[in-house]
């Protein structure tokens, strides 16, 4: 299974990913609000978030997340299409939007336009192998 690696430090806040996602899912249409990815631009920070599953109720307890001195609203980092926020929903409706990897077989469009490689496609299995290799090595060394 492939997955998208998101690197906040490389993101420039250009929103090209939002645009191509919109065009891919709705004929001839650029509308960032209908994209399944959202790029937050907050002061000195940019962070893309890819839409995940729908939830019909918001969390009862929310956490504060601090990464490298910056305080994030957990609902921004969260991938859910949720009543807590007007994000990942068709504008004016409650129909949830979710990343579908651009179809079957997966052909993620967003990574194609992300020139700075903030979004890249990686193979999950490779990750595991890397990890196993490392563990093997550690075992031997240990």
């Amino acid at each position, binding site marked *: 299974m492939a997955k998208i690696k998101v690197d906040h430090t490389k993101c420039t806040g250009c929103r*090209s990913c939002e645009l191509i996602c919109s065009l891919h899912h709705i004929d*001839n*249409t650029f509308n960032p609000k209908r994209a399944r990815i959202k790029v937050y*631009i907050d002061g*000195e920070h940019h962070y893309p978030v890819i839409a995940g599953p729908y939830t019909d109720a918001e969390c009862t307890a929310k956490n504060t997340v601090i990464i490298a001195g910056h305080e994030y609203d957990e609902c921004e980092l969260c991938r859910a299409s949720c009543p807590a926020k007007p994000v990942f929903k068709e504008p004016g409706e409650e129909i949830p939007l979710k990343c579908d990897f651009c179809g079957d077989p997966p052909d993620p469009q967003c990574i194609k336009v992300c*020139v*700075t490689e903030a979004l890249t496609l990686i193979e999950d299995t490779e990750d595991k192998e890397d990890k196993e290799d490392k563990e093997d090595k550690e075992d031997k060394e240990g």
Partner: protein
Amino acid sequence: MDGWVGRIIRVDLSRGDFAIEDLDPYQAMDYIGARGLGTKILYDEIDPKVDPLSPENKLIFMNGPLTGTGAPGGNRLVAVTKSPLTGTVTCPNTGGHLGPELKFAGYDGIIFEGKAPNPVYLWINNDEIEIRPAEHLWGKTTNETEDIIRAEIGDKWQAMDTHIACIGPAGERLVRIGAIMTDRNRVLGRGGAGAVMGSKNLKAVVVRGTGAVTVYDGQAFKETALAVLEKVPPGGGPVGELGLLAIGEMGALFSILATRNFQASVFEGWGNINMMALKTQFLVRNRGCFACCVPCARVYRVDNVEGFECAGEGAEFETHALLGAACGVDNLPAVLKAGYICNNLGMDTISMGGTLACAMELYERGYLPEKDVGYKLNFGNAQALVELVEKTGLRQDFGDVLAEGGYRMAEKYGHPEISMTVKKQEIPTWHPQAVQGTGLEYATSNRGGDHMKAFVLSEELLSGGSPETALKTEGKAAMAIHGQHRNAVIDSAGLCTVILAIAQSWDFESLTSLLETATGAGYTQESVELAGERIWNVERLFNLAAGITGKDDTLPKRILEEPQLSGAWEGHVNRLGEMLPEFYRLRGWDEEGVPTQEKLQELGLA
């Protein structure tokens, strides 16, 4: 319609009401959009002789058909108005997210007319349009204005997707080099559009939209856009990697950066204010505009240099060249701070730097007494630079004189020839005694001294050219004309010139396929090229009617008569006289620079 949304808002500020109008599809096709369409509307609707700061002038915000699409660099919004600095039509454009947001709200543009009795701002949230009081914002800096408006929106999700254009104290005080800021750090910079906005008592335009921009043939459009992307070097190449200051390095390499008010073209302190200095000391991260694949903006922060603390975005190359090299200042925090104040008060950094450089030379030559200016204003005085930028934005003390721009200041002190301006607008850094074609471009620019209306520099030196070709005058007229039409199309389509130049996709063929797949309006390469020429000519007609004539197509006396440079450029002046007659002839203009009837007929302007 595809590409265009098809609607514009007309706001009568005097009466405090507005109307929604349909875009004229034929006019949109002929003038493409943004710069071209805005200019055509201004030319049709105002008397070019009006006082630019009177209610009779109009301020037109206009997008292009590609603004808000995923075309690489499809983010430009243009402000068209009669300039209080030059008296010509001017057309600064901004990247960022404001233009696209306006289209998502459902509008190609906004025409502001008249003058509000009291300060107001315009609120646009899709179909909800309101002219709201702005007394509480008057006097605030651009950053404060952003903060207050965002706080007033209340809902954080709505606030984060709202984009704002506003003026600072400079625009309010009718500073002739006043700019309109968008998204805090993007700018409608050149020509004083901020002062026009201030003269109308219009503090801000606030936009939020949830709609769409559609294109005619999404699949073909996507292929065209991806083909452009493919030609962009990974990460945006040197400009993506190091910002627009990377272009400055080329300027330094060729020794063509205006230094100490154009008295030299080698600045010994450049290494202290260049891209590496910024990167190693104050860079926070790289940033791009909407739909950008060559992120050239630099988010920076200076928090450890007393007196020069600042944080923002920019560090544009021309800012460093004019506020730095042209003023002989090699103190990076000071240059960043001066640029920051320009953004915060709302001023054009090129004209600010050029004006201060002129003041410094006037002072050093003894034409400008110390008691007037309040400083020992030698070249290189970083502290004075920063303080005088602030004073200019507030029209305080000598800042009141600087606020008039370099030409008017130098004239007041009896030496207009010391001002490095064309049509009273400060010229950019590329020294026109070296790059001859760029000199022609400055001289003939319809909005006064400017390098982005043809970017001849690319062809004559940076990509494919050489110092020898730079010094030639042959062929430069044709080069300038080609660039002028091409850039008129880029500015009118709503695209970013930098991206298309880097992707080498600014030929008419590439531009036509982007325009045609987006609009399906029937554009051909010929009709697009002709539209570029039409736009150039309608700007010219406006200027002629405003009283700006062929006599004004010139360069500062020093540039034409007194060799300033050394090294490869030693002994050279700009030989404008060898290029200008040919330029007029190739344009189908008479010897005085007036378009012939024949030419006007060909362009449908007769």
